[in-house]
């Protein structure tokens, strides 16, 4: 399989890409330029990570793909987004969910007053394949997240952060997606839980063939599980490469992994300017 892939010409490899984002520019509220030409590709069945600091444009990129930008007065003004050979930047989020692209938003966003199981069922809202298929998906979700089965009748607002993240991912799975846009799954979770969630993402990717585009600040974990990574800074892709390469890159090590040639570095040694006390203002 891999040997074959090497021989295929570029044109055919294009088809292997589930999603390609071509040089998109995103403007919020007609004035705030957030993405200044971002291009990336997600091959079928792979995990691709978007890394970068706060405000680099990771979330905006994901929302441009899932078209949740509209609700925030954002707009893709240049470039295009192609999913399975179809241009999708004009499609509504529900059209996209029906085509197999679903986003898990940053900060979990569970429906707090619904139970965990009801939360999961809302994920199947767009499905038309009947109760049997939905039942099967529910079992699948419970298979991957056994903890959700225990908590199925509790209100999502009262479950722990980890359980909410699992609910959010499970809810997305209920739509039977081919591709999940996963935004900051590690946010506010204990390192052990982060590991657990990424492990499940990895298994979903391998066993169910779901492709992932994930935005992550935690570059260490992100790069460990990703097949390919893009690093965003100020709305631009500044570097890309497969997970292994990025992890070994000196700059990435220093800027994002907190490592340099001398091993792990303490924050105390990082140069910074102390803010002068201001008595006025």
């Amino acid at each position, binding site marked *: 399989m891999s040997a074959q892939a090497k021989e295929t010409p570029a044109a055919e490899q294009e088809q292997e890409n589930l999603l390609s984002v071509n040089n998109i520019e995103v403007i919020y509220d007609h004035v705030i330029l957030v993405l200044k030409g971002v291009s990336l590709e997600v091959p079928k069945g792979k995990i691709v990570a978007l890394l970068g600091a706060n405000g680099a444009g990771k979330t905006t990129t994901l929302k441009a793909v899932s078209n949740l930008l509209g609700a925030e007065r954002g707009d893709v003004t240049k470039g295009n987004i192609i999913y399975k050979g179809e241009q999708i930047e004009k499609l509504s989020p529900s059209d996209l969910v029906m085509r197999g692209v679903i986003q898990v938003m940053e900060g979990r966003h569970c*429906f707090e007053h619904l139970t965990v199981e009801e*939360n999961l069922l809302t994920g199947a809202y767009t499905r038309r394949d009947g109760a049997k298929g939905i039942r099967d998906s529910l079992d699948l979700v419970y298979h991957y997240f056994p903890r959700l089965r225990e908590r199925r009748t509790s209100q999502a607002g009262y479950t722990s952060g980890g359980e909410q993240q699992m609910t959010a991912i499970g809810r997305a799975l209920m739509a039977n997606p081919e591709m999940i846009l996963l935004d900051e799954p590690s946010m506010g979770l204990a390192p052990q839980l982060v590991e657990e969630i990424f492990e499940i993402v990895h298994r979903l990717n391998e066993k169910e063939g779901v492709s992932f585009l994930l935005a992550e600040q935690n570059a260490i974990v992100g790069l460990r599980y990703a097949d390919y990574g893009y690093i965003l800074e100020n709305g631009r892709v500044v570097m890309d490469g497969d997970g292994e390469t990025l992890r070994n890159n000196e700059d990435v090590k220093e800027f994002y992994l907190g490592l340099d040639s001398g091993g792990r570095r303490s924050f105390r040694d990082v140069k910074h300017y102390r803010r002068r006390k201001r008595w006025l203002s």
Partner: protein
Amino acid sequence: MLFLAETVISGLMAGVMYALVALGFVLIFKASGIFNFAQGVMCLFAALALFDFISPGGFMDRWFGFYLPIWLGVIATMGVMIILAWMIERFVLRFLVNQDAIILFMATIGLAYFLEGAGDIMFGSDVKPLDIGIPQGAVDFLLDDYGLYIEKLEIVAAVTATVLVIVLAIFFQKTRVGRALRAVADDHQAALSVGISLHSIWVVVWSVAGIVALVAGIMWGSKSGVQFSLSLIALKALPVLILGGFTSVPGAIIGGLIIGVGEKLAEVYVGPFVGGAIENWFAYVLALVFLVFRPQGLFGEKIIERV
């Protein structure tokens, strides 16, 4: 004792009528966070439309030379309310997605005036006695055997309200669309992200609210005739909502009953000491007390906050 019982019962019945109006508010507020000022006018509009569908000399009669039997008229009016809901979504709400609640509220005030004017032009502004065959007068055996005076209409209203609440509860708890409605109420963004289309959900919510408005309009119209003051009962629904909580369907019912009974009791037992007319302001004072001590109402959703 008998007098007390009669006061309480007539209070309960009046409360049911308030609750019917309040219900429409709750539905829309729950699903979209909009306080729909036009709900009262929607009751009026529905009642007017129904009247003109089923009466000789009405709109249908003048234009097409025939009028509909009552049951068909009710169905046709439901259709009108659904079309109205669609138009409201298409021409008003769609352009106001993600605006502040206050802006949407202002839009509904505009809508209220528009509907009132449209109703006036289309149906005329005279008082119309709406009669759809709900029996009038007192319930005989209660009056004869116990000396209790209870209107048949009020019994019908109570039964209708009960049925309506049960149907709505099932719709919200058990159906796919009901679940989606609650999801939208919880988190617009997340609902969008799982592929729930806000546009269609809003049409559904406003349609349901429109049908509830029709039921309230029928009851009020049968009680006191279809007239433009009907749109003002929306004001009475406000304290009901504050009492029951803006987001709770049972809250709307219980709030309505408390206001209805409280009002009547206050009028009868406290009224004489302050010169009467308590009924007119009692509800608002009660609402004020609630706003101070329990702003989310009796059954309002507590905001779940994680720390």
